[in-house]
């Protein structure tokens, strides 16, 4: 009943609705399709009757009879009146998803609405973008101009510097000899002084250790290590001197332990030695062996998952047995740390000033100052010689990126990102934590636009990630020079968005720009 109807329909597709007689999805500019004449596929592969053009069946291998979904790899032209015309892949015809003028959905039953008006917004956006590009491009011209002039200056300066460098080097060498001669007596005197001091320090330390051993034995009544109770018998050790020396206070002095053996007593000793009053003046016992403090080294693979919030399976397995016991002790401050603090405060540890005789010898200052000054002058010259390196950088086809050299740009989120073009990129947590640095690698945009992406390399590696992390800096055109965003698309690979006028291209005529990709 309706098969014929269907067939008629299929044949009439090309002519029934479109106001101009041309195949659906073909722009007006195309002259290949002439009604009533047999159609030859554009690749010349065959000729078909015109009623088989646009009948939703693919006859031509190149798809030229059917800019619809019937042929693969074709493209379909949406006029998109009021907006910009576009070619869409033929596979998107009648798929229920509309282009703005809805002409692609002529047979899908999709409830399409012409939204090309909405496209105006996009058009306005494009106009704005073009405006920016235009201004940016002007800025770029300026940059190029400056870069050119700067380069000439730099080159001139470089040759000037290179010639003066030699003189300076000679001067530095001469002054170095003078300085070293003057410094010799001073150095010897200082050395003598230092040696004497060190010997004294060793003697003092030994004495202290002997005292410690003595006290340990004195405290340890029952020869099973010093306990809190034993410590309590020395009320002079009460830290707050409130006349009640409590167990808790004693335990603090004991570094949280109930009992310590000779090996761990050193920590306790450091806490009590200032106040401790000996019970008797017994003989100093033979020195005991120096105790070695050991903090348990956890031997696991936790660096596989560097972030703490991700529990790692293997690690859990290996440690699960110890977890319970460790949990409590983990919170305690290991005794060694306190010891260190104490030592640092110890004012006995500072070397006394040089004696007068030594001081008198220190008259090499003048020679030193002269030498330093000469050396500084040479360094400055050397710095300027770095111009050589600067000149050697690839600052773009017209050196337009040169102005970025020796500048840095920052962006702060929960991290502080710092981009110093042609030098490095760094990332540092806002609140504490170590900085990650990557160094300048190369331009790495696509072949036709190599100056659109910078690559920084040699960051630290990541577990199962690449050996070294990298950062891509994507450059887009704008009036300012600013880092706008950073992200980590996959672990250890960072992406930074950077706006600079230096990448602005001459804006094409707006209208013609919207007509790109016209070729089939």
């Amino acid at each position, binding site marked *: *009943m309706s098969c014929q109807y269907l067939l008629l329909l299929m044949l009439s597709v090309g002519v029934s609705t479109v106001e101009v007689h041309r195949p659906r999805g073909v722009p007006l500019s195309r002259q290949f399709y002439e009604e009533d004449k047999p159609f030859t596929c554009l690749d010349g592969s065959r000729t078909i009757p015109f009623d088989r053009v646009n009948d939703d069946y693919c006859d031509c291998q190149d798809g030229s009879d059917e800019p619809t979904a019937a042929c693969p790899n074709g493209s379909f032209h949406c006029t998109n009146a009021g907006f910009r015309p576009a070619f869409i892949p033929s596979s*998107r015809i009648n798929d229920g998803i509309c282009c703005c003028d809805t002409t692609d959905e002529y047979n899908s039953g999709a409830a399409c609405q012409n939204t090309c008006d909405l496209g105006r917004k996009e058009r306005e956006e494009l106009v704005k973008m073009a405006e920016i590009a235009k201004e940016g491009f002007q800025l770029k011209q300026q940059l190029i101009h400056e870069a050119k002039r700067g380069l000439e200056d730099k080159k001139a300066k470089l040759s000037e510097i290179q010639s003066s460098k030699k003189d300076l080097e000679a001067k530095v060498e001469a002054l170095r000899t003078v300085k070293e001669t003057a410094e010799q007596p001073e150095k010897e005197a200082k050395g003598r002084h230092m040696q004497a001091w060190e010997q004294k320090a060793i003697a003092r330390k030994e004495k202290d250790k002997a005292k410690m051993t003595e006290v340990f034995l004195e405290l340890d009544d029952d020869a099973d290590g010093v306990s809190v109770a034993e410590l309590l018998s020395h009320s002079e050790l009460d830290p707050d001197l409130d006349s009640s020396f409590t167990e808790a206070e004693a335990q603090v002095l004991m570094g949280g332990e109930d009992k310590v053996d000779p090996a761990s007593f050193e920590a306790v000793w450091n806490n009590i030695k200032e106040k401790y009053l000996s019970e008797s003046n017994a003989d100093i016992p033979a020195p005991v062996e120096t105790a070695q403090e050991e903090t348990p080294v956890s031997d696991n693979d936790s660096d596989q998952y560097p972030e703490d919030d991700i529990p790692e399976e293997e690690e*859990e397995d290996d440690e*699960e047995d110890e977890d319970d016991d460790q949990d409590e002790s983990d919170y305690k401050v290991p005794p060694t740390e306190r010891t260190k603090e104490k030592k640092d405060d110890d004012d006995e540890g500072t070397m006394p000033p040089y004696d007068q005789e030594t001081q008198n010898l220190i008259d090499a200052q003048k020679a030193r100052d002269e030498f330093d000054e000469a050396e500084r002058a040479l360094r400055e010259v050397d710095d300027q010689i770095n111009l050589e390196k600067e000149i050697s950088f690839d600052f773009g086809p017209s050196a337009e990126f040169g102005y970025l050299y020796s500048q840095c740009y920052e962006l702060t989120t929960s991290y502080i990102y710092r981009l110093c073009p042609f030098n490095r990129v760094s990332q540092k947590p806002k609140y504490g934590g170590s900085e990650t640095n990557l160094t300048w690698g190369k331009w790495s945009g696509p072949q036709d636009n190599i100056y659109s992406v910078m690559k920084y390399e040699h960051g630290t590696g990541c577990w199962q*990630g690449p050996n070294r992390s990298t950062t891509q800096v994507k450059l887009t055109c704008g009036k300012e020079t600013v880092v706008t965003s950073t992200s980590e698309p996959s672990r250890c690979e960072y992406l930074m968005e950077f706006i600079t006028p230096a990448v602005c291209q001459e804006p094409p005529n707006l209208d013609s720009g919207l007509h790109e990709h016209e070729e089939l």
Partner: protein
Amino acid sequence: MPRPNDTTVAECIILERQVVVTQNVLRCSPLSGFLCRMVPVLVLWLAVCLTGTWAVDRGNFKTCDQSSFCKRQRALKPGESPYRALLETMELTNTRLTLQLINDNNKVRLLLELYRLQGNITRVKINELKPLKPRYEVPDVLIREPPTEPLSLLSQDENGVVLSLGSESQRVIISARPFRLDIMEGSDVLMSLNSRGLLTFEHLRMRKDTFSYKVTSTVASVWDNIKRTTKEEEEKVEDGMWEEMFKSHSDSKPNGPSAISLDFSLPGVEHVYGIPEHADTLRLKTTENGDPYRLYNLDVFQYELYNPMALYGAVPVMLAHNTQRTTGIFWLNAAETWVDISSNTAGKTVFGKMLDYVQGSSETPQTDVRWISESGIIDVFLMLGPTPKDVFSQYASLTGTQSFPPLASLGYHQCRWNYNDQEDVQSVDAGFDEHDIPYDFIWLDIEHTDGKRYFTWDPHKFATPKEMLQGLKDKKRKLVAIVDPHIKIDSNYKIHNEIRSRGFYVKNKDGGDYEGWCWPGSAGYPDFFRADMRAWWASMFAYDKYEGSMENMYTWNDMNEPSVFNGPEVTMHKDAVHGAWENRDVHNLYGLYVQMATADGLTQRSGGVERPFVLSRAFFAGSQRYGAVWTGDNAAEWDHLKISIPMCLSLGLVGMSFCGADIGGFFKTPSTELLVRWYQTGAYQPFFRAHAHLDTPRREPWLFGPENTALIREAIRQRYALLPYWYQQFYHAHRTGDPIMRPLWVEYPQDPATFAVDDEYLIGRDLLVHPVTEEGARGLTAYLPGKDEVWFDVHTFQKHNGAQNLYIPVTMSSIPVFQRGGSIIPRKVRVRRSSECMEHDPYTLYVALNLQRTAEGELYIDDGHTFNYERKEFIHRRLSFAKNILSSVNLAPDAQFTTRSWIERVVILGASKPSKVTLKTAGECFAFLACDVDSSLVPCYMLAN
């Protein structure tokens, strides 16, 4: 735009029609070359020896020796069974035989039940006659109480009984002393139980050092105890019976030893398959020189290949096959299980076998299997075939078939741990459009949640999920978000509070809520064994409960073994308690229940209209009813690509057809070549998803240069063009239980050359795929089965004869796929952005003629996403080509469905150019067809609109 109303179009298109082709001449392409298959086999073996530098930490997982019941059971060697059948206790009703067995050593009695089930299945159940407390019997796996058939007594004497199994010539012989059970057909023994005397049943007993034991022993069962302890030798208490340690984990074993074991002998069998999940060859190996195959759902970090270690899922089903018959053993037990396999021919070389043959000393080959489980009862279904497909339908009659998934889920899935935020999702989505690559699903892993609290969204990264979902929906695409079964213990988390207040958490041995460590930190595990818990869980997927969800959002259940980072073997303690049962009894069932409850939730949220899609990592027998599974956390290595084939084939054999492996490999970073080859392989496997670890670089298809983008695009497009065939396969699997991805031997059961093949496979009956899985391959050798078959290369249409090893030169674009002569395969060649975009597109029929110049195929069409097919809303037609006429018959005359699709083209392979083509349709429809005679591509193109 006028267009005839849809119904009439559909009717016209699909109604009976005949295409008459005249002047056919067979086009033959004789092919040369027999290449020896030994070559690839050797290479593979070498590769096995060289791997192993990077692998699982084996120390985290038990060997048989470290699992006390396995060690105890395995210490028993074959010999005379202590069990004796007490024939005087036999009771035979129409449907059931019961009989007591007694262990002569300890006088403990067992009850044997034997049923004849419909469809050539025999069920054997053995339990303690009077257990101290009930032993676990697995619920919810069988789709119903299996219908029985009459049993009749043939003969009986003091040595045993003979029963007839239904109408066939099958008999069961129960021998009394020692007890053994043989199933015979004619004079052949199909299977023997306890023939090696390995039946054991560790009866439940009182703990001797406890108060309760002392009380009991003085009061209630004095007599029993006298019997047990005075008359018989005192039971030996071995280490690990009442308490067991593994690493630092203690298993309190309040019920003591409870293991069961039974041996099966399979005379005439040299090939056994199944018992997934293992990263091993398709053909199971003998286990005499190592550990048995283990079935215990575990989250194995960086699993190792080619060994019998347990993995994420467990299906206790084994198939046995020889040229005469296929049988199956379904051991319905959810506890930790070990399967030992031995064979009397395994040690022999081909030469040795020949020598036996020449000298006439050959004994019948035989495979012996032994199942050992930690607790529960023996409940075993002997599926007696005789054909592979009979076994599939027998198993399907017990546990159901593959769920019929939404068509879109057969498309390509783009996954990564993790797509970082909504912008990321949007830009990946746009990337597919920009590069003109189709895809249907984008996936969100755990990072999308608010601090690993499932059912929530990260408030910054995924602030407006519905906006994101709508954006995908506008392009007819979908999203999957992960929901794992470990629940963060956090009093500000609604889901946790509800589960806790309802008492829905699994309990620890002391009765408190069980807590383990997983992604969110400290977590509870909902007790999915409770029906009320599952109902509540399902209700959480309602659109108003699961905030930010929409109808194009589906679910992924990961970590449902369950994974417990700080638990023994990275899973739950065996003495954790689910209702009345220990995890020990039920363990392997947990994952099934999670997926079941989730799938129910997705069904219910649409009022039962829409089909769910749920991917699960853990599974058990019956999980096929709830969705898809994948092979877990594999790695970006060539061997992992290769193993994806036997792993999915083994799953298919036990009913789980919707299987795939992470494309590209989850851990590590694939080379570009490996990635491309993996796409090409995955495009021809049922579940087609790319996935990657958080710490690996991005690998969306367009990141490897235009050439590789094109190769990947082409592989994905081939998948989309074939979606009608895939969908039809799923419909078929849903109806019958046949595997979709199937080993060659399933279709060529009499060709021993196919029995161990696992580097190529069939999709349905008609497509043979031999993916390129070797690095730097320049060619490969595919075995084309079938003496009377011809096979057509689907890309070049070149014809090859069956029963040959065909050398195929390959380039990077090659995906060797062959269509069987005699088949008709529907394709949709207008590949679009997503499968839904292709819904109304026309079909192209690829008719490949066999030597008789005939072909047959099917076409199945429905709406692709609802349950309306259950209400007969579909089109199912048989297409046949014979005598130069292509015709179609309605296979479901009572079904009705309207489609706007039509058949636009018929491509006939193996015929020559017709001079004339006509189209006939029933009723009034009639039209002239033009034949595309100019085409140089194929013998004949026909226009059929």
